[in-house]
């Protein structure tokens, strides 16, 4: 047995390494046999020729015998793969145009998908690194009815977290988590960084033992104030401490408090942060307990007035999701009752119907999926369609090639090569092409992915396509699939090959036949191109509509300057003086056109107060009215127009009569049909002094670009929280590039360890436009790609047809057909074909429109202009694609065409 194995191995090794020698031996051996046999016949008196013929007949098919002998050697598998590969490479090299075309087509298709996979995987599928058993870990959402609509939110209070810990039974761990942007460090490297404030239980959700030191324990995470200990993030430890282990025990300033470093988290540990890796992890109770933001937050663990964190929980094994959710909901109702006993204005459980949801940890898979994620999902299915089109194109090219090779294939079949072997060879070719295409596609995905990520995930830590193994596996899988799919078509061709027919007919077919499979593939491409281009048109128009929306303020020239006071305790007067000084200095800076004070910035913060208006029962019921407090230059700095009355002036000081400027919509909401100027608003209670309306401003977009009701009012900053003011600077040009220089020039004004952050306004607005940008860019890119692929496909089919019809066209020309007749025949064929595609594709796009409708803005999914333009584009492409072969057809020389018969 052992010796058998050994000889087997020896034989195989010899066969692998001395392949040529063995091949020669086989040749010699067979030749010897046949010659010997022939000798026998000659000895019996036959002629040399007759003897040799008889010997060959007696031996049988030489090639088959050789083939079977190789099989007998038992390594045919490995060897024949090598052989197939060689054969494939040789065949592909003979046809460089075809090879390069197919590789590029597949590279674009695979690259597009790889790039989109990187994004969608991050948004929707990938769970945080090192999370143990992610399927049982949930982000908890709380839902209740509010003014007739149900809203679900994951942001909640620490008190709620304690309630859920106390009253749920189906969870093995619950953790509290919040990422805050806080100043970290001291001296020159003080910067605002992501700080994760977490419960001690959070670490138990992960398989992530600390790199050095330890995590904090439940005893260090207790109300009212936890232990002032900190765990560094791995990246921060590496860059700011050089990975030294003597950091343990050192102090570190985080926000307004000082902590002691007790450990370092392992590489890649980011907890549940979706804003990149946190620099530091601190006990959530240490942060909340030492947070000096006024007395109302000091009882953060007994009251429900500070919603600032999220709850993550691990279901116990054996507990179903439904059980866990009902357990959570029961606990939430108890918690709700508790909250209501403290705050009687809260509606009762019976009215609000509070219930809890245990969603996947990825926020984009929770109940509040962003429009961006939805668009990204759409775009990735578009990428899949592009790949499909690319495959169709390649299959089409392969089919054309295999039809051209029909004779070669028939000959090889006749020579005794088995169909199975032939199929394997064809498959090897297509897999080789797909593999090469996939390799190139990775590069395409690498560059393209970087581009798409800047559109979709600018805040996420960039991961590289080429180093991410999930993306690599994905690329490999789709390359394989593409190879198999594109290889299918010619394989069917082989299986149908009828030997005698092919050999007989050869290349001279009197009547040309168009392959039905090729026609079908081409039609599919045309249809899909129409659908994608219609999608592109819809998103481009949406983006243009969104861009055309007037926000009520300028974006590009504005810088937002936010003073961060940190632990510094200034009197209100001193703080207000600092901010006045900031705006005056800013105004004098070169490059600054004007500067003004404000209180909030759109999209980032909202300030509201209770309002009372004579004759209106409850102002709150009419909507949410947001406050902006401003200095006199505000309106001109921001570019917000005053429609009637006046703006805020320098005469509106602390002790002068209180005044307000209202947005147009607020004025008409509070005093419909009446003049709002001169009316009286009261704040906090109906006994407070009048705030007189002195002006009407245009509406601005405060919280949403598309859905904002524009209910704002403006107060003089001197009359409303001057100590909390922020600065807006209007730059003469290039605001974004000057943010850092403005910061550097203003920073010296900041007392103590307080500091400034300067943000270009467009960075605040852009994320709100991003979903349309993504949709428009990607649909356009993919739609264009699809169109080009379809045009190439059409071109190759028509060019092939023309080549096949040389004879027929020659006859026509010989019978007196002119250039225009020939062109009409060929181009008409192509156009007719695409027209069918346009009609079918338009139908499909009309039908699919209703699903994409919610992602659009102010454009109907049935927009006739878009459909018209797309149809025209397709027909144009078809015209060009068929005109080139048509012109070639007119040059057919009838004598040559006919003589070749």
């Amino acid at each position, binding site marked *: 047995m052992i010796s058998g194995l050994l000889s087997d191995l020896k034989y195989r090794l010899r066969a692998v390494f001395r392949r040529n020698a063995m091949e020669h031996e086989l040749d010699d*051996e067979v030749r010897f*046999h046949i010659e010997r046999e022939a000798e026998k016949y000659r000895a019996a008196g036959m002629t040399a020729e007759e003897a040799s013929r008889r010997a060959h007949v007696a031996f*049988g098919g030489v090639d088959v015998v050789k083939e079977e002998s190789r099989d007998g050697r038992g390594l045919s598998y490995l060897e024949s793969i090598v052989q197939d590969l060689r054969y494939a490479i040789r065949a592909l090299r003979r046809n460089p145009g075809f090879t390069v075309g197919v590789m590029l087509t597949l590279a674009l298709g695979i690259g597009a998908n790889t790039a989109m996979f990187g994004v969608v995987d991050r948004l929707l599928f990938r769970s945080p690194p090192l999370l143990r058993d992610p399927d049982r870990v949930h982000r908890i959402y709380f839902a209740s009815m509010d003014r007739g609509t149900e809203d679900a939110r994951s942001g909640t209070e620490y008190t709620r977290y304690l309630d859920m810990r106390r009253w749920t039974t189906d969870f093995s761990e619950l953790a509290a988590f919040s990422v805050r942007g806080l100043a970290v460090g001291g001296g020159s490297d003080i910067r605002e960084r992501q700080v994760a404030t977490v419960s001690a239980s959070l670490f138990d959700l992960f398989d992530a033992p600390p790199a050095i030191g330890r995590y904090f324990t439940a005893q260090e995470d207790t109300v009212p104030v936890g232990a002032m200990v900190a765990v560094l993030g791995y990246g921060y430890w590496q860059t700011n401490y050089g990975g030294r282990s003597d950091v343990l025990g050192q102090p570190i300033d985080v926000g307004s408090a000082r902590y002691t470093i007790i450990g370092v988290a392992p590489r890649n540990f980011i907890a549940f942060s979706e804003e990149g890796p946190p620099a530091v992890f601190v006990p959530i109770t240490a942060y909340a307990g030492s947070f000096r933001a006024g007395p109302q937050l000091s009882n953060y663990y007994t009251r429900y007035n500070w919603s600032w964190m999220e709850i993550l929980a691990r279901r116990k094994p054996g507990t179903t999701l439904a059980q866990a959710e009902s357990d959570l909901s029961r606990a939430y109702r108890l918690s709700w009752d508790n909250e209501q006993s403290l705050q009687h204005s809260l509606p009762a459980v019976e009215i609000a119907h509070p219930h809890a949801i245990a969603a996947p940890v990825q926020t984009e898979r929770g109940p509040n999926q962003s429009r961006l994620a939805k668009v990204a999902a759409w775009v990735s299915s578009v990428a899949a369609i592009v790949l499909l089109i690319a495959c169709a194109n390649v299959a089409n090219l392969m089919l054309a090639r295999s039809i051209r090779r029909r004779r070669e294939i028939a000959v090889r079949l006749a020579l005794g090569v088995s169909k199975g072997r032939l199929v394997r060879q064809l498959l090897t070719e297509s897999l080789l092409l797909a593999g090469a295409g996939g390799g190139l596609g990775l590069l395409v995905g690498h560059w393209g992915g970087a581009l798409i990520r800047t559109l979709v995930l600018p805040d996420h830590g960039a991961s590289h396509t080429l180093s991410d193994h999930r993306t690599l596996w994905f690329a490999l899988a789709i390359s394989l699939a593409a190879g198999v799919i594109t290889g299918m078509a010619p394989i069917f061709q082989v299986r149908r090959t009828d030997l005698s027919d092919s050999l007989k007919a050869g290349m001279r077919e009197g009547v040309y036949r168009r392959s039905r499979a090729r026609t079908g593939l081409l039609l599919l491409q045309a249809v899909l191109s129409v659908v994608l281009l219609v999608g592109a048109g819809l998103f481009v128009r949406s983006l243009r509509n969104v861009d055309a929306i007037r926000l009520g303020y300028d974006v590009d020239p504005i810088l937002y300057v936010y003073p961060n006071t940190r632990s510094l305790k200034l009197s209100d007067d001193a703080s207000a003086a600092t901010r006045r000084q900031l705006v005056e200095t800013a105004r004098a800076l070169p490059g600054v056109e004007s500067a003004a004070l404000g209180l909030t910035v759109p999209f980032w913060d909202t300030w509201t107060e209770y309002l009372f208006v004579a004759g209106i029962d409850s102002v709150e019921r009419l909507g949410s009215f947001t406050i902006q407090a401003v200095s006199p230059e505000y309106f001109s700095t921001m570019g917000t127009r005053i429609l009637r009355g006046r703006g805020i002036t320098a005469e509106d000081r602390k002790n002068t009569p209180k005044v307000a400027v209202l947005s147009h919509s607020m004025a008409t909401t509070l005093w419909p049909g009446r003049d709002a100027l001169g009316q009286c608003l009261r704040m906090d209670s109906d006994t407070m002094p009048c705030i007189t309306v002195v002006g009407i401003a245009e509406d601005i977009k405060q919280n949403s670009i598309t859905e904002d009701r524009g209910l704002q009012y403006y107060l003089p900053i001197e009359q409303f929280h001057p100590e909390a003011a922020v600065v807006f600077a209007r730059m003469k040009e290039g605001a974004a590039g000057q943010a850092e220089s403005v910061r550097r020039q203003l920073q010296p004004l900041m007392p103590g360890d307080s500091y400034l952050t300067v943000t270009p306004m467009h960075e605040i607005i852009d994320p709100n436009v991003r979903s349309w940008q993504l949709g428009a860019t990607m649909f356009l890119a993919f739609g264009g790609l699809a169109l080009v692929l379809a045009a190439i496909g059409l071109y190759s089919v028509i060019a092939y047809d023309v080549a096949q019809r040389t004879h027929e066209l020659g006859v026509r020309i010989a019978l007196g057909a002119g250039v225009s007749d020939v062109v009409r025949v060929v181009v008409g064929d192509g156009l007719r074909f695409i027209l069918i595609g346009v009609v079918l594709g338009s139908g499909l796009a009309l039908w699919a429109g209703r699903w994409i409708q919610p992602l659009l803005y102010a454009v109907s999914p049935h927009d006739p202009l878009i459909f018209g333009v797309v149809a025209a584009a397709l027909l144009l492409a078809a015209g060009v694609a068929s005109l080139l072969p048509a012109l070639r057809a007119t040059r057919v020389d009838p004598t040559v065409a006919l003589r070749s018969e």
Partner: protein
Amino acid sequence: MSEERLDLPQGTLDLLILKALSLGPQHGWAISERLHQVSRATLQVPQGSLYPALHRLERRGWISARWDTSDNNRKAKYYELTRSGRRQLEDEAEDWRRLTAAVELVLAMR
């Protein structure tokens, strides 16, 4: 040529080759000749099919091959039985006898 030539039952070609080689080293053509003559031209052994079988037997280590000069002074590939090949021949021959004896018994049934 005889009218009644028999196709070989599956798997018996190996046995015949081993047997032919048990009388001494031979090259492929001589094996085919010997089988043809000894069976009085009854057995239909396609000459070509000999070679895949020879290669299979060589891989299994039952026969070994070397190049040598043939009787007409040309290089030919000679096969000879190895020790394990000899054992294999005995086993297979025994199996064959038992099988044919059993088939005989069944056919002799009245």
